[in-house]
């Protein structure tokens, strides 16, 4: 048994502090600009939600992007029709994603294994294709849904004078872009983390884990697992909807490409990379992938030449050629390789990596027990 140095409260508080202080401790990594921080928080929420389904019940859904997309559309419609305030937008996003998740979940959960994966994939692809074609009046097709000057904005029109230009999303007057936007997302991320913590520790969470390890046995005890599964599916769909609406809050436009199956694949990658079924893992994975996406893809050959300029010329060119494959436009290659390596050698993701490292350290430094168990705990 691991020594419990941290209880859940401390874990939660540490997490909250780490998230809120991200602009400071990410600065040396070149990742403390608001756009990226917002993405960290938003995709963190997406991954936490996905983990409630996949991590706890083991059901591999390939359709979560649909909920992300619906959340975005609902939020933008709320901006267009009612008010630029972020709160109703988020509520609408969560609500509509929840309803869609209820429908898709009710149908898909009748099957398990790969049949479930394909059913969710089929539903998500249907939503994607419909958003592109028939639903154009609602989704604005390929252009994507945007704010316009002609939008009614009924609630805003009652209270606020119409200004020049497009209004900006706000939270009772605070602009939802830049750092304030990040803090809004961060607070929601912390709330989501708390919810997920409570779910992990609750009898409900235990039930879901029971389904993962042996659903038949759960059924034999006379328990109907379907409602629990459906609850988990809807909760995770609502998290995705929240993430989608936050994407719209920080940048008020919604496009169908958010619903494509590659977006569903991305959240699977995040969860796996971080560590399936762990509390912190999905957030780490989301952060890492978004970090790579932004930092690696901005590298180009000139930066590489600067970086390797200490090498002799011919060698420099070769090194730049080779590394150039992995950064810039080719960062997906890095992602793919990283992913294969993680699945082959570290099935538990980064979190398992930390745990192994911690175990290694604690073996070497027996007396210094506090620091290693601290690592163990924070990695859980």
């Amino acid at each position, binding site marked *: 048994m691991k020594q419990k140095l941290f209880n859940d409260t401390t874990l939660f508080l540490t997490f909250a502090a780490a998230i809120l202080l991200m602009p400071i401790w990410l600065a040396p990594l070149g990742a403390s600009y608001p756009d990226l921080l917002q993405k960290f928080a938003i995709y963190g929420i997406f991954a936490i939600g996905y983990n409630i389904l996949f991590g706890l019940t083991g059901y591999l859904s390939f359709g979560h992007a649909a909920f992300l997309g619906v959340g975005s559309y609902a939020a933008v419609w709320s901006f267009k029709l009612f008010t630029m305030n972020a709160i109703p937008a988020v509520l609408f996003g969560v609500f509509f994603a929840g309803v869609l998740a209820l429908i898709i979940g009710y149908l898909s959960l009748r099957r398990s294994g*790969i049949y479930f994966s394909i059913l969710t994939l089929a539903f998500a692809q249907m939503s994607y294709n419909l958003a592109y074609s028939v*639903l154009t009046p609602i989704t604005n097709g390929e252009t994507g849904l945007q704010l316009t000057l002609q939008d009614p904005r009924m609630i805003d029109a009652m209270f606020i004078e119409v200004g020049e230009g497009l209004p900006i999303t706000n939270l009772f007057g605070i602009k939802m872009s830049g750092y304030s936007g990040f803090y809004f997302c961060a607070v929601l991320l912390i709330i989501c983390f708390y919810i997920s913590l409570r779910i992990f520790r609750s009898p409900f969470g235990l039930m879901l884990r029971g389904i993962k390890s042996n659903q038949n046995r759960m059924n034999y005890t006379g328990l109907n697992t379907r409602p629990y599964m459906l609850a988990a599916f809807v909760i995770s769909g609502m998290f995705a909807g929240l993430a989608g609406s936050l994407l719209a809050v920080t940048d008020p436009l919604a496009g169908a490409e958010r619903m494509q199956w590659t977006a569903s694949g991305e959240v699977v990658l995040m969860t796996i990379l971080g560590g399936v079924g762990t509390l912190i893992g999905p957030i780490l994975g989301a952060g890492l992938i978004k970090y790579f996406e932004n930092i690696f893809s901005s590298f180009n050959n000139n930066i590489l030449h600067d970086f390797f300029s200490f090498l002799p010329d011919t060698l420099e060119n070769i090194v730049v050629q080779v590394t150039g494959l992995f950064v810039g436009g080719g960062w997906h290659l890095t992602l793919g390789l990283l992913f294969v390596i993680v699945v082959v050698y570290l*099935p538990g993701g980064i979190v398992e990596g930390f745990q192994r490292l911690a175990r290694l350290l604690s073996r070497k430094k027996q007396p210094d027990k506090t620091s290693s168990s601290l690592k163990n705990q924070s990695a859980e």
Partner: protein
Amino acid sequence: MDSILIQLLNGLDKGAAYALIALGLTLVFGTLGIVNFAHGAIFMLGAFCAVTFRKLLTLSEKVQDPTVTLFAAYKEVPYLKIWFGDTGLMIIDYAVPLSILFSIPIMILVGYVMERGLIRHFYKRPHADQILVTFGLAIVIQELIKAAFGANPIPQPPPDIVSGSANVGLWLGLGEALVYPWWRLMYLVFSAVMIFGVFSFLKYTTYGMVVRAGMWDRETVGLLGINIERRFTIVFALAAVVAGVAGVMYTPILPPDYHMGMDFLVLSFVVVVVGGMGSLGGAVAAGFLLGIVQSFASMNEIKDIFPGIDQIIIYLVAVVILLTRPRGLMGRAGVMED
């Protein structure tokens, strides 16, 4: 009537592509128990074998153009023309069919390396892990191809002799209006031959019999002293060849680009699951079924009644079939349900 027949041909054509990829997928699943998300990437590799082969054939030398006398003009002349004259040009013209021969050894190698190098370690891991690792592998292959060939589609013309359209209407006595591209007809015939070949290999050869026995009960076959793993490796290579050759033949229809594999993969998975995991007949039947249903749904008459139906029909059919027939059309009980 004409438009119905055209849609039927279109559907068969599309269905043939789905069926060929799905056949390999389900073969690998039935034998090795692996859910291979990299199968679409193999299809794409096959298509790029054709691209590479054409590039090799058209390696050119700069020759001074004697017709231009004002200044020194150069033109590129393929070595094949310099060496063999018109025969060389004919070889270049037939690049696509010839690259089938070129692609077979390459696909065998790709399949062998993939199975021995990576997938072998995943037999005992959960299906989710297999999906993930092959998904990662597919990304890697896709990005390597993108780095090597660029992101734009590279058109591959079919040989001149079959570049036009066949007058299908005349053959059937339906008038001149009904024409269909020759190459698509060739593709259809070719697919039928491939599918027939795979089935007869499994059904009528001793080797195939052992493989089928292994699909049913791997352990017992192993106890009989047969090295079933080795045979399954070869089955994996065979599946790679089927997908790769299908990719080669598909290049004149769809200019290959690096993400064509992913585009086909999702649909092929739907096809495999609709047909029933691990069922070869099911995969072929579902492939043709979905292909035909899709092309009929894209007819204007039907789109007028149900707008947008052509976009979702495949998935709709898949959902309905999976909800009414839990194991797909011809699936066996207990497969992939854990």
